[in-house]
């Protein structure tokens, strides 16, 4: 095994009297597709939120490329080259796809206009169009507001945004939950493209067949801890299910 790109160890997070994470571990290797599996309440979302900087863990260590790092804000996570596709997509519905792609990273005109904060809309639209074309995200009208788009198209915009900005890892929380068969296939295509570009993908999903179709590795959480790790090609759905439901004993101690 190569050196892990992201190594999360012994993360604890408590909400009131609920222990969401009890010394959770998680590993991502460069350029792989790894699925994070677990039943409801296993701590998947809490772990993802820790990595993307939405919540701060109470204890634990995050190593990125072997270095200990602190991720205390979404920006800190992004600065490491980690982008997140949230389950709710986190798009601004009243902006167009280009506006969403560049939200918070707007391109300004050079010189005086830029100093005044004037947006270079043509340039952002041009780059957005190029990105959507490269990623094969099909939008009927690049000028339409996101609110007027289908669920699949919105997903395309959100994934494309993460892909354009991510240099190391994309976290995807239930990327196919709201999608039909065709759109799910489109998202799979996108995920494979991300991998081909050398960016690792972390996939949080309930959809076991989907995970088996696309993931290289599987890490299973249960009750706030990692309980099993599998290489997809060398395991079966039954084995993974047993780990998720606690039929098999954990592979590693907390």
């Amino acid at each position, binding site marked *: 095994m190569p050196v892990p790109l992201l190594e999360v160890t012994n993360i604890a997070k408590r909400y009131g009297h609920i222990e969401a994470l009890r010394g959770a571990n998680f590993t991502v290797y460069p350029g792989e597709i790894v699925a994070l599996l677990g039943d409801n309440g296993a701590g998947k979302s809490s772990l993802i939120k820790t990595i993307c900087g939405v919540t701060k863990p109470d204890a634990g260590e995050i190593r990125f490329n072997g270095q200990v790092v602190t991720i205390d804000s*979404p920006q800190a996570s992004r600065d490491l080259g980690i982008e997140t596709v949230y389950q709710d997509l*986190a798009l*601004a519905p009243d902006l167009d796809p280009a*506006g969403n792609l560049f939200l*918070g990273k707007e391109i300004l005109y050079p010189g005086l206009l830029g100093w005044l904060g004037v947006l270079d809309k043509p340039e952002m639209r041009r780059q957005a169009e190029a990105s959507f074309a490269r990623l094969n995200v099909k939008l009927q009208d690049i000028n339409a507001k996101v*609110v007027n788009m289908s669920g699949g198209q919105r997903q395309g915009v959100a994934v494309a945004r993460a892909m354009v900005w991510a240099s190391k890892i994309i976290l995807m929380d239930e990327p196919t939950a709201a999608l039909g068969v065709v759109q799910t296939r489109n998202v799979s295509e996108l995920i494979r493209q991300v991998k081909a570009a050398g960016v690792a993908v972390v996939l949080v999903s309930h959809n076991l067949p989907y995970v088996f179709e696309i993931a290289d590795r599987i890490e299973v959480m249960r009750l706030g801890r990692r309980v099993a790790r599998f290489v997809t090609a060398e395991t079966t759905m039954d084995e993974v299910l047993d780990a998720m439901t606690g039929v098999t004993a954990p592979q590693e101690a907390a």
Partner: protein
Amino acid sequence: MADQSQAVPVVPARAGIGALLRSMLRSQAAMTTATLLVLMAFFTVLFPSKFLTVFNIQNLLIDYSGIVLLGVGLTFVMTSECFDLSIGATLVLASVLGVEAMVLVGGEGWSTVLVGLAATLLTGAAVGVFNGFLVVNLRIPSIIVTLGSLNVAQGLAYVLTGGQDMHEIPNLMVDSIGLGRVLGIPAPVLVSGIAVIVGAFVLSQTRFGRHTCALGSNKEAARRAGIDVNRLSIQLYVLSGMCAGLAGFMSLARFGTTTLSGHSTDFITALLGVVLGGTSLFGGVGTVLGTAVGVFIPGVLSNGLILMSVFPYWQLVIVGLVLCAVVYADLVKRRQRDD
């Protein structure tokens, strides 16, 4: 492949002239402009020698120049999905403190007038910081915060003056700003016109405007995109307060007195202009040009009603009813959109 075959038939349909016309009709700015023109045509036919005269239209523009200034600030705040009920009272408090400041430094010259301008703008900014702080840091809903600051500002204005209007305003200010003209354009109209142009540009073409729309559209998305939404909210309240402060300064220049009780309906008129202009009550969408047009619907209506010798208080009744109707239309549109 499947997607391409789906996309092809849709594109030409969208580019058709019929669709273009429909989308223009759907745009509320176009509807508002059309409504304004119909209203104006109506009163022109009714009063051919009185309504559409240079004198009357000019008066109308001057009368509503202050509301336009309030509307510019309110458009920004409402685009970010917040409210500012306090603008009318801020205007009054700013004009009182403006006079106080000018009395304090004394004199009748431009330096005194500039001190007055600075005092009105600073008052507006201070109310904005107050509103923004309570909304952002204490997370009190903006409608309640600004209802509170409305009363605080109006109350302070009465306390500071003992309820008596102040008149100690340099003649220079009234003569050259209130009654002044630049290239034949009345100065109050010019000031409001510039505010509209700058406001429209900032909201639609700059990063600040883009972030304002994003904040109103999806606050969480804006936050996750790395936008400092708290700082932005406070900035928007300061902007709104400063627009009200400037309106207070212009009011002093026009009337030569603090009009303590003269602005109780300013907020609702400005609000009606903002929503008629196409800014959504639910944030995310705002247009300053629409506001500038929208404000003149109650304006023309009121002007026409006076010409018709209708008891002027009916105007309030109509403004209130139209406001409910317009907000209902916005609501229906939003529900359709979200389905």
